[in-house]
């Protein structure tokens, strides 16, 4: 049994320690807002916050979570920065298919928590998640708006 602090609540999961956090979230806890895209930390669809840092949860075993506080997309609007990011995402009409956007919103929230006024270069490096619909320009515009 492993106890995880997720979105301010304590959850106990009965999974093998090497289980990626992604699958504990999705299959064990039913929190499906965090998406599986590649499983090798390439695409970023599974991005969550671990102590406010962006983390690709598909390569992050539950055994390494420890006492860290996890924030998922389900609780993003309870976070002040996250709420601004969501509003910017809606205002800029960022998502198309939307599948990568949970991860994009989480990555943007982490970026703005660390760097409230990001440069274009910060956005380039901070927002490395893949989007097959090609919403990259809209993502950048929304990050700029959320930072404004």
């Amino acid at each position, binding site marked *: 049994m492993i106890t995880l602090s997720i979105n301010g609540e304590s959850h106990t999961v009965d999974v093998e320690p090497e289980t*990626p956090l992604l699958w504990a979230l999705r299959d064990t806890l039913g929190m499906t807002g965090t998406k*599986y895209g590649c499983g090798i930390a390439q695409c970023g669809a599974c991005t969550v916050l671990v102590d406010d840092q962006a983390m690709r949860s598909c390569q992050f075993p539950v055994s390494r979570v420890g006492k860290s506080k996890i924030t998922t997309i389900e609780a993003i609007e309870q976070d002040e920065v996250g709420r601004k990011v969501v509003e910017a995402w809606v205002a800029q009409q960022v998502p198309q298919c939307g599948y990568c956007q949970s991860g994009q919103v989480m990555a943007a929230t982490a970026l703005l928590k660390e760097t409230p006024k990001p440069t274009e270069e910060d956005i380039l490096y901070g927002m490395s998640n893949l989007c097959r619909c090609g919403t*990259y320009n809209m993502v950048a515009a929304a990050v700029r708006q959320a930072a404004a």
Partner: protein
Amino acid sequence: MNAIAPLDLSAVTPLLPQSGVANMSRRGFLGSAGALLLGVALPLGRAKAEEGAAAIPPKPGTRVPAFLEIRPDGSVKLLSPFVEGGQGINTGIAQIVGEELDVNPARFEVECAPPGPDYALVNGIRMTGGSFSTRSSYAPMRRLGATAREMMIRAAAERLGVQSSELETDDGKVVHKASGRTVGYGELAAKALLLTPKDDVVLRDPATFRYIKRPIARLDVRAKSTGKAIYAIDQKVDGMLYAAVQHAVHFGSNPTALDNEAAVKAMPGVHSIHLLPGAVAVTANSWWRARKAVEALKAQWTSPKPTGIDTIAADFSSQGMLDALKGSKSEALPAESEGDAAAAFARAAKVIEAEYDAPYLAHAQLEPPSAIARFNGDGKLEIWLPNQMPELFQATAAKTAGIQPDQVIVHSPMLGGFFGRHFMYGPSNPFQQAILLAKATGRPVKVLWSREEEFLNDALRPLSHTRFRAALGADGYPTAIEARTVGEGPIGRWFGALFNTPVDSSAVEGVVEKPYAIPNRKMEFVKLAHPVNIAFWRSVGHSMNDFFYEGFLDEIALAGGKDPFELRLALLKDKPRQKKLLQAVADLSGGWKRGPYEAEGGKRARGVSMASPFGSETATIAEVSLEDGSTRVHNIWVVIDPGSIVNPAIVKAQVESAAALGLSTALFEQVVYENGVREAKNYDAYQILRRENMPAVHVGIIESGEPMGGIGEPGLPGVPPAVVNAVAALTGQRIRSLPISKTKLSGV
């Protein structure tokens, strides 16, 4: 081990082409699934003639209750013929219906409708694809909304004891101005929808549109920005087992035995182990456990057979396939003929020729494919699956399960990207595995393919090859063009029963029907079937053929001493629609200049192209520079003329999205086969466009008033040739084989 009925392929074989390359007839497929498809696709006239009046299905798009549920609170649930996958159709269709119904589209909830003849709006078929959704539904959905509005008015007239002519509507309410009374649609709906619809309702004057042609916010954006949108992969049903699969390394091989079954069975959470056609599967109480277990399985497989239409031999390679296309000596079929090309070549001042090719491509949509199958107590099968054609999946699922189509309940959740991925591709869809496993376990089963399984088993955009020749007159203008395209298109493979023409339009579109005034044309097609499972892929044949043609057209221009833009303009002298478009894209880009010219960070150059995909017209300009021998694209300008539009914001978003995908294919993408297997298994090896490669995209829209064309795909085909033509302007190097990343560029 629970071998499923020793590899009983009977349930799935109808989907698998049964004959080899030597005999390319696909009667096995067409005779069954094709017939099933015809069953749902019959034009009304034929159904009437053959089955009698009692069997006449409703005229698609006319029965109001099949589409609209108006709730007591006045909100509207719209059952859509189409599935939402990012193209914005849920919003667009809400705008169209809402405009005539007189309900703000923001109060619509849109869901993909279950299978049924009411939804067969695309030439008598139901599908989400071919950039057909808006253009096929615009007229019937306007009429449907107007019909429903009139029913609300009639129901209100009865309720209020007044004449219909005294009533108006105002955003979901019927208003009796004289008395100031109003009744909400929600209160009227139950009675109103029982009324006999009128077939002569008056449509709104477009000059008074409030929703159509406006950049209405998309309905699903907030849900998609907060993780609340539910995709197939997110579905869960009570008592469900999770299944992971490992497919045969070689397409066409089957599992015969397992070496370590007991050890794998003992792994945490494992429920059962199964042999499936072409795959092994493990079910477990979580997908991660199922995956760990199936990857631990040591299976024995049948040896790969010689290359055929349903097998890939151990020595198959994509290069070998390209060589076969290039070397084909087969007699060609005419795909477009005009004038006397032979005579024009005989008196040409100059003749040029070139060969172009483009690789296999994966869809690489971010949501890996999955499917849930559940056999209910009443003998019905319920399936949740990503799909672009509910009725065909229903019919095929029924066949797999050994029941009738009306015993199959189909749920079509929102798609996490599709780009053509979720049509019926036989063994490249996981739902049949889910059905077989649900049957074998007696439990609901969700099959999810890992990203690796997806890259190895996706059906692919076919590789293709075209050889061109052009004759130029003494004035440098082309007098004749010839093309020989060798390959196979997805329409021929998957819809051959419906579109039984010798020349597969999906293989030659973009090489034929170009707008240019080249008087003598001889465009030919040679069908050469791929052993690889082939697919529709965003913009289909246009995704490569416009690159072929427009690249070669630049070569013609240069051979004749002409500027590529000026040559196009000259060749469009009798085509006002396309000529205007070409001038518009030049204007949007600040005036045509080919370059090279100095810009920030070094020399840049521009390329231009045109395309006529899916009933729309596009003109594209790309601006490139070189960075360390790689192509850097700074700007893409696209002007699209789709005749008329519904939502300019969605049009722009779709054109930008398509441009990004087109650029991704121009720069990076290719599925490479070596020794019978695909090399790339994930995004680390199959490179797609990333943030750092994304240019600024500038989109212009022209509404010429021509018949409405498509939007989702047309932004793509112009991008690869515009980029390649810009690279040639910059470096003098002519790219004739994609992706560009294969070629080391220099010379700036």
